[in-house]
């Protein structure tokens, strides 16, 4: 198990509903919780992952997410069991939409 913490600049999320949860903790998958964060122009991410040694990949995936989505003012907690970047990116997009009350 490895714990990783990141902080990225990101445009403020336009609207926030209740905390949102997406995904499941299963092999090749992950669970993401989005809640309100302290800084409106930053996205804070905390990851617990079963796959050690992928900090730079997480950094790249999350930086791309924070740059392409308005995710400022959020705190994101991730429980990962070896999800690929494709799954991580998809779940992040899904959970952020849900956090904004949009769902699908």
């Amino acid at each position, binding site marked *: 198990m490895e714990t990783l913490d990141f902080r990225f600049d990101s445009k403020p999320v336009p609207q926030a509903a209740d905390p949102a949860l997406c995904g499941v903790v299963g092999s*090749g998958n992950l669970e993401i919780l989005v809640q309100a964060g302290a800084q409106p122009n930053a996205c804070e991410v905390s990851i617990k992952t079963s796959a050690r040694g992928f900090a730079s990949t997480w950094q790249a995936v999350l930086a791309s997410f924070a740059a392409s989505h308005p995710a400022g003012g959020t705190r994101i907690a991730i429980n990962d069991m070896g999800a*690929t*970047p*494709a799954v991580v990116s998809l779940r992040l997009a899904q959970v952020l939409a849900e956090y904004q009350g949009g769902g*699908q």
Partner: protein
Amino acid sequence: MNAPLPRDWDTLRQSRSRRLERAASLGFGKEIPVDRIIDLLEAVIQPGDRVCLEGNNQKQADFLSESLADCSPERINHLSMVQSVLALPSHVDLFERGLANRLDFSFSGPQGARLAKLVQEQRIEIGAIHTYLELFGRYFMDLTPNVALIAAQAADAEGNLYLGPNTEDTPAIVEATAFKGGIVIAQVNERLEKLPRVDVPADWVDFTVLAPKPNYIEPLFTRDPAQITEVQVLMAMMAIKGIYAEYGVTRLNHGIGFDTAAIELLLPTYAADLGLKGKICTHWALNPHPTLIPAIEAGFVESVHCFGSEVGMDAYISARSDVFFTGADGSMRSNRAFSQTAGLYACDMFIGSTLQMDMAGNSSTATLGRITGFGGAPNMGSDPHGRRHASPAWLKAGREAYGSKAIRGRKLVVQMVETFREHMAPVFVEELDAWKLQKSMGAELPPIMIYGDDVSHIVTEEGIANLLLCRSPEEREQAIRGVAGFTPVGMARDKAMVENLRDRGIVRRPEDLGIDPRQATRDLLAARSVKDLVRWSGGLYAPPSRFRNW
């Protein structure tokens, strides 16, 4: 003038006669008692023979393979094996026990690791790794078998054979052997007084043996829809909208795997909603994939010609004889050689997956420590320069590749991969493992499955790269890096150049295609379980027990 040297012109026939006489002297007629099969094999096979052992990724002459492996290496040795697939433990036993020492083949999936070890120990000499059609071709050129050991469903008293739905490679093997002085031995599942139909006439067959149990058939093409992921749904949406619809692909082959199974299951839903019914995917060279059932039932599919059959699909196929090729008896007729020919010359698109791809687009399923071979992919995943007939998809691809004055079209060869495999192994790499494997095998060439210059498109979760539109090796490389996601080679992209390629439509993201990745849910799949497939088939599909969980 030199007088011609005297020579015998029928040594093959003489050799065949001697072998048959040896069998006759041991009291063998055409029907061999099961407990004497080894005596027969030792009587008719000679050291140094070229032996074809029938077996593909589906049907296997498993009893004859095990029997041959149990023969005495004192009597039978230095065999040169020619076979489509090295799949069973007994196939490798032949080499480990010293009966055979040379191999020409196409595919070795499950035995890939054992094969690599034998090569490293220099206990096996690999002639070449082929694609199926190429190997069949060599059966009629320089690799004609002396003895063929084949599998059939049934034999009658004369020795006529019924092959059942899994005809597969048998006609090609038997024709090459029987008409060049060879011996044909068939294991059969049953003896019948009257066959449903005759697939191989008795005078092409020398001996038959009733196997103790029916020949093994691997349900290789059955994919459980329950295991299809949302990322695969996303890639399938991109492929349908960005390639199938844009080129109007009506004639095609799908490779094996969950990526293409997802496409099959989106035809009655997503593709139908896009108004594509009747415009794409009407004619197929394809094994009877259970995941194609919903598209067939929804009226998408007009015709399917099969390389082999698939376990559990026989009743469904018989009941859909407008779609599948079936005999007068009602059961399916498959034929790998003809289906591969259709895949080569009569399909406008091949779409499949791979384990590794380099920056020139070369792809390989060979990874370190495993020699797996290629099967049909190099054939169907190649642009045939012998093709002359036009079709809209072929012409459009040709104009994209060669410009508006193109004098030929181009086959669409699509590689569909997630950028990372399981355990975070990147698919996109700077150098294929195939190069290291070449060294360890001492081979002339690296085992590349599909050459980069044959690839037209790459689909990943990040987008589609259209390599036809690239005008330089640098553009191709950046187009590939541009869809390689967060793999090290993907992150090493020239961002400005990739954005330029995106402006030119060479790299397209989901949003460029009007696809919101959040729409990619499993709800779009026409069937979400094997049970759903059974329901779509009206109860005609009978999945093998390992795919039943109800």
